[in-house]
């Protein structure tokens, strides 16, 4: 992956972290979606609150649904959101 990645937050994840997107430099040890969430939790109380119960949070890499163990290699955009409720 490039040095920086765009992180996006939707619905109550967005509300809890207090922003809809940011450009972040991830630690080199972050290899999967789960690793990114673990790192995000260390970034302050609002992130800790948002990702506390992280098993319910869904993710997408470059606008495609991704499991928590999915590799983030070459990812340009990683999004975090609750289970979808459209329709």
């Amino acid at each position, binding site marked *: 992956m490039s040095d920086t990645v765009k992180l*996006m937050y*939707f*619905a*109550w994840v*967005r509300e809890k972290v207090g922003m809809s997107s940011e450009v972040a430099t991830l630690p080199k040890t972050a290899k999967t979606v789960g690793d990114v969430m673990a790192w995000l939790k260390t970034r302050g109380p609002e992130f800790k609150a948002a990702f506390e119960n992280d098993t319910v949070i869904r993710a*997408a*890499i470059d*606008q*495609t*649904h*991704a*499991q928590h*163990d*999915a590799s983030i290699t070459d990812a340009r955009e990683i*999004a975090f*959101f*609750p*289970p*979808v*409720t*459209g*329709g």
Partner: protein
Amino acid sequence: MSVTVQEADFDVADETKSLTEGDTDIGAVVTFTGLVRGGTTANPAATMTLEHYPGMTETELESIEAEALARWPLSATRIIHRVGPLNPGENIVLVITASRHRQAAFEAAAFLMDYLKTKAPFWKKETDQDGQGTWVDARESDDAATRRWTDTDKRRS
């Protein structure tokens, strides 16, 4: 064969007409319209706000539509999903399927809605009369409805 995400309302009759006009090979048209339900007496009508993930939404809907076209002999399909603030009674989503035969049209429309409900990145927030907002929880019954179409999981792993 098109998907649209929009704030504006849609007209089922207009959309059906533009989808099927001039194609006399169509024998069956199924439309599904999803609407904002009103509240109960205990918890009166709330307004709803629909958030989505621009870009991914369209990609997901097109992928769902392509999957339906691969599974059933369809003459035409149409998906419209609204976003933004919506009041009780207002339209949320429209799915239209057209085919030679009714079974394909019925099954494909149900499939499109099941997939849309569990794959397309939309989120509903209800705001009650006191201004209190609540994000709508996903329903396990929607996941179950989607699983009946397949055992495979298309998410990256």
